[in-house]
């Protein structure tokens, strides 16, 4: 019984982490239609920034926010100076971000060596809470709480604010949006930076749990991809549901079929592709 419960708690925590990763990917790929193969690299680079700050004795939240801010700047620069020149041309964008991902991966290997970094769970987040006779590790619950807060904030931002309306207008019809005075280019840079920041934040949140090591980037990228294909491109709700689904599948798969856990992850994606190519919550695009 307690094994299953532990697995369930771990699954929910991983789901929360995946949401931080894939919500940014959903913004960039789903909303802006930029196939960003560097997203896993943002996650890993952010995590490395975070562990470096933590090793320097900084507070966990300071490290996470600083890393997210740094990644936002880097992401914004990449969008503004590299991807912008290829606007609307997806194949070159794929190749450019793929090249960028290789560069980031190699630089990380150079700077942070090949050994895994696993920071301690911060003191005030350590320990367990007892609910109805069952014990829950606080840190896992915090990850979930952060994910839920981010989900609500993003939903409010995209669906209910003026800024969100401008973003949607800019995505749907850039020329008309420009005519009515929306600064589409700036908005896109902003959204890309936000997506990168979310990935980095997720990276730091995940560091005490997953540890940070070379190759993490290309391990996380397909996960973000599965979540978004599963949930439907551009749907935040889809990304949320997809994240928790994959979180459960990964942990239970790992426990029951350790050899095949990684493969099992892709099964729902394949089923969705065959049965409902637009994803669980995606709209049909003609």
């Amino acid at each position: 019984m307690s094994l299953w419960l532990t697995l369930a708690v771990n699954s929910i925590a991983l789901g929360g982490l995946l949401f931080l990763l894939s919500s940014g990917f959903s913004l960039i790929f789903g909303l802006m239609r930029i196939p960003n193969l560097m997203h896993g690299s943002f996650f890993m680079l952010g995590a490395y920034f975070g562990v470096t700050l933590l090793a320097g004795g900084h507070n966990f939240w300071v490290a996470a926010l600083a890393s997210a801010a740094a990644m936002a700047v880097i992401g914004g620069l990449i969008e503004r100076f590299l991807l912008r020149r290829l606007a609307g041309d997806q194949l070159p964008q794929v190749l450019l971000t793929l090249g960028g991902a290789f560069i980031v991966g190699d630089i990380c290997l150079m700077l942070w060596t090949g050994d895994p970094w696993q920071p301690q769970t911060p003191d005030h987040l350590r320990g367990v809470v007892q609910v109805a006779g069952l014990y829950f590790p606080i840190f896992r619950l915090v990850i979930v709480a952060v994910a839920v807060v981010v989900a609500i904030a993003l939903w409010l931002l995209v669906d209910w604010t003026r800024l969100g309306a401008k973003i949607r207008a800019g995505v749907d019809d850039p020329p008309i949006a420009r005519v009515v005075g929306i600064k589409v280019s700036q908005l896109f840079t902003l959204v890309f930076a936000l997506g990168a920041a979310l990935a980095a934040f997720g990276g730091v949140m995940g560091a005490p749990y997953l540890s940070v090591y070379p190759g993490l980037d290309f391990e996380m990228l397909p996960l973000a991809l599965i979540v978004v294909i599963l949930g439907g491109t551009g749907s935040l709700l889809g990304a949320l549901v997809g994240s928790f689904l994959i979180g459960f599948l990964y942990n239970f798969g790992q426990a029951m079929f350790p050899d095949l856990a990684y493969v099992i992850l892709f099964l729902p994606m394949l089923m969705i592709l065959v049965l409902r190519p637009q994803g669980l919550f995606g709209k049909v695009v003609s």
Partner: protein
Amino acid sequence: MLLATLPMWVGNSYYINIASQILIWAVLALALNVLVGYAGLTSLGHAGLFAMGGYTAAMLLANGHNHFIADLVALAVTLATAGIFAVLALRATGIGFLMITLAIGQILWGIAYRWASLTNGDNGINVSTRPEPFGLSLSSAPSFYYATLVVFLVAVATMAVFVRSPFGASLTGTRDQARRMTALGYNVWLIRFLAILFSGFWSGVAGLLFIYYNQFISPQVVALTTSAEALLMVISGGSGTLLGPIVGAAIVVIMKNVVSAYIERWNLVLGVIFILIISFMPEGLVPGSVRLWRAASQALRGRVAVPAAARQEEPR
């Protein structure tokens, strides 16, 4: 002629081996080019098909089957995988296709790496012997080079026929004007499906050459880096041409060998080349050089150099 006599004037087996590597990768690049160049479908999962051929044969050989059976089964398995690959990936075109092939490639990597009881995991599988077609030993570098050259030439000939055939023309048609092709009564899905099978078959052949060359296969071969390298070969040389992927394979293999001799940062170099090519010669080196050559020769003849007409592409 140059290729056929190469071992005689090169002499050193190190360089002959590099030539063999170039030919092996060129077969994979040509196979990928069928999709990228002629079908307009960019795949980032070809390392999976390449390794599917290699792994199947390596596992069968390790279990004591003979080369003929192992290779035949390996190609059949690769074709079957390519079929599944096609059915799934063709649910989308353009960027969706690429993302699905990337995911499938990662699944196959996951099998090779994590399913240790089947694939021996990170330790890989050794291939103890090379085959002896018609009783000829392929253990020396020049003899293996010749065997690779024969396969390579067959691949090039098949590709040339394929591209010039009515089927090749209809494939290019689906790339440029999918909707018009449907209206004309062509089955666009089937044409693309067959193109993927064809591409998968030659990827599998390249995989077989690869394991016989290295006499070893490990999950590293299935990694995204391999798919990316193959794609770089196609794009750097110039997709949609026959010569392009071959030149691209030569460039990438030579650079990889030269770079690895000095520094360990091959991935960094790979990334930088990607970004430079995308930024400065997006059409690839072969068409790019042809364009420059034409412009130069026209300028020499005193005519006004007309900029080469931009390649017509369907808006993605």
